[in-house]
């Protein structure tokens, strides 16, 4: 590695360490402001930073993911460094992390939009880094277009707020937002929902995600999936909960419904996707859907003045954010390792990697367990807290219509968990196990050590989150209780279940102990295992790798049982109609340009008469 690459990596690592420290400080309750720095003198373009408790979790996640990606990149960049301007990738990652930090620390509109746009542009450039390959530019452009649409809606929301509060400062927004007329509040809510859900990948604005994540370099995908979509969540939480305090009832219901639909639909699509990274991208949409589901329930509870229940749901959403960020980052690193070793991402061409890349495959297996929400890992802890939050809310509202929404949310959670397990088993079973299905998979060798180190650190982190999540959740709850008017202790429902610091470690100990005990007992009774190798049974005929099940085969039962899953809902019901109506109205308006001189004269005539009449009416009033 050349010096400049070492320098870039070190800079990134230092930046991430600083960000993590900032986040931890925020969680401890530190709340400080720096700025304002005038960019252009005597103008509203000032930069102000502020640490606040809500941002603390996201900052920690950013720092940790960034650090993991920086370590991972040392080995992963070998191919990219050989190119000209290979350093741009390292610098791009650094700038990307910096931009996300600016978004999380922003305290006024200008800083926020500066960071947001920088984040979007830099991530677009990083996504199309491999632009010489066919099809990459198109997906990248779709991403750029969708993200700009989202930013436009965000700007509209901020400008409306400015029009009513005459200030660009977030603190003023927080203080005065609930004094606005309800219609204006709703408009702001809808604009910010559209803006943030475009970036977060909530349906139906998600179409860029499964196309953009797979084509980016793996650690870029991991940062995007692990952190960038969470910054959108942070923005939405700030607007909806910090500024509006939950808003009207229908806000929470809308967000919860959108989240539930995203979760189930994306999980279904994940069981059918063809490439590893595509599966992981759909799974990101699905987890963001679950997180938004809990956020919606939290907003609903806040609007009903059920503060403890709302806090519980909010905690659930944030805790799942942390865990999902961790394991998704590492999962993408693992996918990158597979890509590095075999140069192919397609499930139907992989296989046998557990034998040719054993260390990576063990790490990936553990990450898979966390992804499928199995004990004792972080993903399990996240889902457990979500389940507890939703079940407690359902029990509380059992005899009211709100309870119906809670039950639907619970059903969405269960279905998503089952579908995620399906996607995970399919990914690992077809991609890593069995015999290699192509020469590329046959020739796979294990990846450089730095990549494996990054993977294993990610694995350890997710295990620690699962085992010792209790104290982290308590810290998070305490940090959030500082939000004005949200003073509440740690909800009691958690202390018995997921928050009991004894449960998960006990489970881990029991299972590990039982497994080891069984092994020891069997070994004691019967001695060492004597194994013999024989070919897999194929009814006595010749055996080829294509006799194994393929990725398509494992997703086929779902398609056969419910053919409905084959229809691309967003395309059919949202995008095609929108496109058709745009073309339709354009065709209609084209009739105005008839090329006939006389019709243009009619327009002229009508304009003149209108102007005269208006001048008369306006002048006549005086």
């Amino acid at each position: 590695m050349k010096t400049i690459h070492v320098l870039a990596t070190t800079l990134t690592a230092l930046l991430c360490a600083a960000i993590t420290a900032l986040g931890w400080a925020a969680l401890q309750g530190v709340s400080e402001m720096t700025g304002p720095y005038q960019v252009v003198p005597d103008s509203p373009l000032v930069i102000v930073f502020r640490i606040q408790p809500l941002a603390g979790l996201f900052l920690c996640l950013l720092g940790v993911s960034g650090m993991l990606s920086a370590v991972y990149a040392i080995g992963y960049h070998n191919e990219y460094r050989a190119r000209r301007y290979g350093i741009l990738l390292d610098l791009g990652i650094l700038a990307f992390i910096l931009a996300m930090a600016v978004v999380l620390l922003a305290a006024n509109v200008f800083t926020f939009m500066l960071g947001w746009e920088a984040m979007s542009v830099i991530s677009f450039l990083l996504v199309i880094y491999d632009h010489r390959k066919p099809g990459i530019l198109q997906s990248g452009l779709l991403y750029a277009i969708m993200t700009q649409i989202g930013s436009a809606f965000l700007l509209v929301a901020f400008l409306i707020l400015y029009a009513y509060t005459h200030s660009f400062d977030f603190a003023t927004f927080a203080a005065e937002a609930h004094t606005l007329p309800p219609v204006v509040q709703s408009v702001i809510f809808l604009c910010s929902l559209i803006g943030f859900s475009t970036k977060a990948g909530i349906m139906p604005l998600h179409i860029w995600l499964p196309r953009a994540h797979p084509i980016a370099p793996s650690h870029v995908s991991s940062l995007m999936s692990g952190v960038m979509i969470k910054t959108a969540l942070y923005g939405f939480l700030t607007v909806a909960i910090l500024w509006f305090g939950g808003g009207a009832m229908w806000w929470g219901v809308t967000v919860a419904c959108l989240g539930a639909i995203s979760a189930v639909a994306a999980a279904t699509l994940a069981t059918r996707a063809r490439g590893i990274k595509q599966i992981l991208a759909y799974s990101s949409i699905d987890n963001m859907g679950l997180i938004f589901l809990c956020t919606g329930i939290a907003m609903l509870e806040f609007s009903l003045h059920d503060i403890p229940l709302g806090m519980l749901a909010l905690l659930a959403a944030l805790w799942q954010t942390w865990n999902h960020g961790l394991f998704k980052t590492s999962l993408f690193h693992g996918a990158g390792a597979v890509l590095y070793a075999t140069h192919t991402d397609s499930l139907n061409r992989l296989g046998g990697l557990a034998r040719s890349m054993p260390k990576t495959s063990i790490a990936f297996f553990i990450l898979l367990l966390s992804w499928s929400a199995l004990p004792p890992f972080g993903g399990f802890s996240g889902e457990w807290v979500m389940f507890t939050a939703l079940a407690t809310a359902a029990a509380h509202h059992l005899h009211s219509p709100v309870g119906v929404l809670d039950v639907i949310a619970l059903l969405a959670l269960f279905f998503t968990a089952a579908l995620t397990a399906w996607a995970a088993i399919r990914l690992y079973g077809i991609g890593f196990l069995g015999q290699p299905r192509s020469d590329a998979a046959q020739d796979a060798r294990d990846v450089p050590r730095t990549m494996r180190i990054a993977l294993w650190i990610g694995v350890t982190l997710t295990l620690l989150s699962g085992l010792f999540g209790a104290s982290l959740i308590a810290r998070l709850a305490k940090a959030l209780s500082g939000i004005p008017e949200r003073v509440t202790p740690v909800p009691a429902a958690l202390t018995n279940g997921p928050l009991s610091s004894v449960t998960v470690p006990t489970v881990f100990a029991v299972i590990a102990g039982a497994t080891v005990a069984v092994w020891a007992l069997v070994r004691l009774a019967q001695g060492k295992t004597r194994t013999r190798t024989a070919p897999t049974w194929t009814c006595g005929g010749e055996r080829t790798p294509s006799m194994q099940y393929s990725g398509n085969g494992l997703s086929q039962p779902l398609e056969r049982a419910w053919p409905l899953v084959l229809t691309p809902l967003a395309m059919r019901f949202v995008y095609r109609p929108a496109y058709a109506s745009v073309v339709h109205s354009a065709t209609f308006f084209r009739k105005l340009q008839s090329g006939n001189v006389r019709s243009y004269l009619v327009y002229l005539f009508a304009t003149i008469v209108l102007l005269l009449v208006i001048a008369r009416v306006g002048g006549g009033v005086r």
Partner: protein
Amino acid sequence: MHVWLDIMMIALIASTSLLISVRFILSAVYWLAFQSLVLSVLTLVFGLAAHQSELLWIAGLTLLIKAMLIPVILRRALARIGLRRQAELALRRETLIGGVIAMWLIGYYVTPATPSLVGSHMFLSVAIGMLLSGVLVMITHQKAMMQGIGLIVIENGLFLAALSTSLGMPLLVDVGIFMDVFVVVLLIALLTVQIDELFASTHLARLRRLRG
């Protein structure tokens, strides 16, 4: 005195209505000449009443160019393509006359009751009515020469508006406008002949074929 002004006003309205509802293009040219004649007399009266020698010159120029020269040019062009050429109307005659009256009413409605310098304020409303009628002529007639005639009617309306509110425009400006109109008419005359040679018709629909 005022009676004559009112009679001239009615003559202007009448000429516009008759112009818009002609059957032969030649008739429209004659009515246009008549209209310009009335306009020049009006200018003379205004000039004498306000003791402005400029207006006398302008009256003379109006008479010369608009009432004589331009109709002659148009008639000669028409002669090259056939004097009995008919005007093709998009709406019925009665409707068009009603349209002119409606334009006059619109003009009446939009004109504020400011005292004009000479005569009643009806002249401004008539002027606006003539302007809008000129546009109406261009919209509802489908022969190329009528478009030119409509243009001149618009210009007449503008001239009358300037006359009745501020006693005309500065001399040089008026001269410039006369030059403009003169050149436009020349062009129209020339092009109508050429179009007729090319298409054996001057109907506007054929003109779309001239597009690239």
